[in-house]
């Protein structure tokens, strides 16, 4: 059963990686990167590493994607001005 689940997850993360390669929009690339991180953190649970899974979910999938999206927003809207 676990083998089936983990195989599905592996296929999912590889698919996510391909979406990150071929998607035209940057945002969907980043979202699929976050999904890959989330899938990897799921795999960590199957690999008996709950500590790593929690850290990856909180940091890799959560915060780093959030910072990414903030950066994309800044880059596209240019919501800041430069004083120097």
């Amino acid at each position, binding site marked *: 059963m*676990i*083998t089936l689940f*983990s*195989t599905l*997850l*592996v296929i999912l*993360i*590889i698919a996510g*990686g*391909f979406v*990150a*390669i071929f998607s035209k929009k*940057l945002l969907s*690339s*980043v979202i699929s*990167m976050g999904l*890959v*991180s989330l899938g*990897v953190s799921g*795999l*960590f649970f199957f*690999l*008996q*590493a*709950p*500590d*790593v899974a929690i*850290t*990856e979910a909180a*940091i*890799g999938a959560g*915060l*780093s994607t959030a*910072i*990414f999206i903030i*950066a*994309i927003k*800044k*880059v596209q809207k*240019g919501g*800041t001005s*430069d004083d120097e």
Partner: protein
Amino acid sequence: MIDFLQNWIYLTGAMALVGIGLYIVLTNTNILRIIVGLNIVDSGTNLFIVTIAWHPKSVMPIYTATNNLVVDGHVVAADPLPQSLVLTAIVIGLGTTALALAIAVKIYQKYGTLDVRKIKEEDK
């Protein structure tokens, strides 16, 4: 046989992620996409490290009331050392990503573009 395959499934996933990430880094000229690639490489590395710490009959390396890690003088837990290394690697990856994004935002403000080629041209 299934156990053996299982290990290879994880290794294949890890290698696929590393390959995809490297491909993104090598073929793209958009700075943010390059950072996406680096992040995917990081995920693949972490998956690889956790996989080599694991074997199909292992339990998680935490002592609880029901989870004993040592049976008859043999450790049955997954190897906790690589797992602790991965914790480190994840945090370092976040640091690199944050710094790279900060540089990318600054580049956009100074050059008005995120394309590596255009930046190179403007410098000349």
